[in-house]
């Protein structure tokens, strides 16, 4: 391996280590000395200089000048950081917080570390355009890792802590003494009953809206209003849905009685935009030529929609519905005012009777942590909820892959 590549590799390794250190300091909020940060940044900067100068000496061209500039910027950051006060007090600006200098130091380490590892691809590929390309790929891969990292962290955390709590008794027994003993059987049944009812309500409404938007509506004011309304509905916080459900369904329709049906209706409103949008996308994915072909054979518009447009878009519609249901299964806010009572409700006993649901059970367990010994049960409930939601999403993926249609 040539000296150029060695220097680049060294730069890469050092930057990754510095970035990880920065991340670690940020995550643990460990106090850090200025010189730890400055030292690592100076090391990076020296390596950058070395790489640029080495390139100039060996090839006599000046493609490496930008990396020298970059090294200087890093050096400047390291040098100027000493002027960051021990505690940055934002109170004079009416922002009631104090940021310790440690935060800035670890932040610089993280950012400069990531940037430098990206920059190191250029000297590695001799400052050609290939280097720019590998650098871009590196950043893309990095963003994938950053996206997946929290997911795995959460999953790992919940699985390791919740695993022990899931036993046969936990799944099949009644909730005893506010969840401290017994199982969560009524909550499982309640959640399953509610999401199935939600699916039954939301599917015709959502698909109907989507068919109207995709097939019948002419581009005009009406469509814009409906689409905007659907988008606003999607952006509405779930607690607002919950309060609406309480004010409208519970108080007006069901005489103040919280019940399964009120909860399912509220969740249906919550999932309606998801179902409508995915159904509309699925319908729009059916090529217009097929509609033309059907119309040219003397089919009416409705026959065309029923026989040519809907069948191939069914997997997409179902996937959207199932994803929406997965979202609904994990929601607490919309059901806490509309459908669930505290732990002792028992298994679902009718459309107009209250139920117990897993997310709400989890919330009530969380409130008890510290007063009673419910933490293992809370983790187990969280894991169970995670399994149900992931299971629902997995089934959506399987449906989509199995019936995927190509045109």
């Amino acid at each position, binding site marked *: 391996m040539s000296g150029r590549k060695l220097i680049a590799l060294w730069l890469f390794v050092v930057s990754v280590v510095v970035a990880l250190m920065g991340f670690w300091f940020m995550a643990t909020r460990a106090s850090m000395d200025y010189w730890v940060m400055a030292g690592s940044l100076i090391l990076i900067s020296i390596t950058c200089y070395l790489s640029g100068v080495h390139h100039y000496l060996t090839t006599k061209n000046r493609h490496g000048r930008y990396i020298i500039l970059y090294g200087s910027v890093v050096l400047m950051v390291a040098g100027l950081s000493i002027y960051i006060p021990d505690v940055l007090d934002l109170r004079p600006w009416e922002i009631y917080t104090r940021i310790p200098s440690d935060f800035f130091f670890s932040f610089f380490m993280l950012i400069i570390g990531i940037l430098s590892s990206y920059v190191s691809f250029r000297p590695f590929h001799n400052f050609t355009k290939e280097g720019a390309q590998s650098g871009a790929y590196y950043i893309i891969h990095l963003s994938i890792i950053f996206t997946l990292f929290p997911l795995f962290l959460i999953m790992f955390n919940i699985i390791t802590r919740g695993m022990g709590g899931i036993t046969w008794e936990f799944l099949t027994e009644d909730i005893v003494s506010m969840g401290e003993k017994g199982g969560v059987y009524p909550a499982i049944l309640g959640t399953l009953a509610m999401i199935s009812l939600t699916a039954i309500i939301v599917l015709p409404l959502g698909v109907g809206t989507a068919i109207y938007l995709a097939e019948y509506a*002419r*581009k005009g004011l009406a469509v814009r209003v409906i689409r905007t309304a659907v988008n606003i509905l999607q952006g509405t916080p779930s607690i607002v849905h919950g309060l609406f459900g309480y004010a409208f369904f519970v108080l007006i329709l069901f005489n103040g009685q919280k019940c399964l049906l009120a909860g399912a209706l509220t969740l249906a409103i919550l999932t309606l935009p998801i179902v409508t949008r995915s159904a509309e996308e699925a319908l729009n994915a059916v*090529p217009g*030529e*097929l*509609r*033309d*072909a*059907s*119309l*040219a*054979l*003397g*089919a*009416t518009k409705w*026959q065309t929609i029923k*026989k*040519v447009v809907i*069948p*191939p878009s069914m997997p997409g519609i179902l996937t959207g519905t199932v994803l929406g249901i997965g979202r609904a299964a994990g929601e607490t806010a919309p059901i806490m005012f509309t459908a669930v009572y505290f732990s002792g409700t028992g298994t679902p006993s009718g459309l107009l009777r209250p139920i117990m649901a897993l997310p709400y059970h989890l919330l009530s367990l969380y409130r008890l942590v510290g007063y009673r010994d419910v933490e293992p049960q809370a983790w187990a409930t969280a894991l169970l909820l995670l399994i149900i939601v992931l299971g629902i999403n997995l089934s959506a993926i399987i449906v989509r892959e199995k019936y995927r*249609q*190509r*045109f």
Partner: protein
Amino acid sequence: MINKVLELLKEEKACQRISLPPGIKAKTSGFSLWYGSTKALKDINIEIKENKVTAIIGPSGCGKSTLLRCFNRMNDTIVSVRTEGNIWLDGYDIYDDVTDCVDIRRKVGMVFQKPNPFPFSIANNIYYGCQVNDMDVEKDEVVERCLKQAALWEEVKDRLSENALSLSGGQQQRLCIARALAIEPEVILMDEPCSALDPIATAKIEDLIHELKKDYTVVIVTHNMQQAARVSDYTAYMYLGELIEFGKTKQIFEKPREENTEKYITGRFG
């Protein structure tokens, strides 16, 4: 009072009728079409002869596909379209308010530029037209008849239940022709049916058109002049939304009356 209303309704229901001379299947008179404010067809007068192949040629954007799609009112799906004038089919006005598009399309089948079979089985593709029109026919018989007419039977008879998308492009296009034949139309419109096909598949479709004209009236849009010369009996040349010249194919290609036609046919522009 009620009688008056009924009379009014009856009056409105009656479709305008003229009698076309023998041998003429369809005819346009003073037909114009606008896309929004652009006039795409300007005062077209053309006669489609029964059991003959009529080709419409012309450079891109001259309105030949638009004209073709007027014969089965496929332009209705476009919102901004406005028409003026009449198109007569067997003496009935296609563009009359009381005319039902569905009836028109049953009489006038269409084959599109790109093969567009439904993602169903081969047999169901053909049976679809009978199904949506509630035709009282045996599925197997229709499938066999249409596939034989479209010269596809020998190639696919053992895999009728396979997805139509597994066929090759040329086979798919012949399937689309077979599908159009299933509803027993009288006129078949073809919108550049060979433009997505290779020469061998094209030759097969052209042979098929020769066979079809015994039983049907065929109107074909093509930008391939050799093809127009090979398959058609009559040729219409269009330019910028106007019908420049219409006559027997032989006359159009050998002794065009208009200078513009001659220029296009000899390849000096277009």
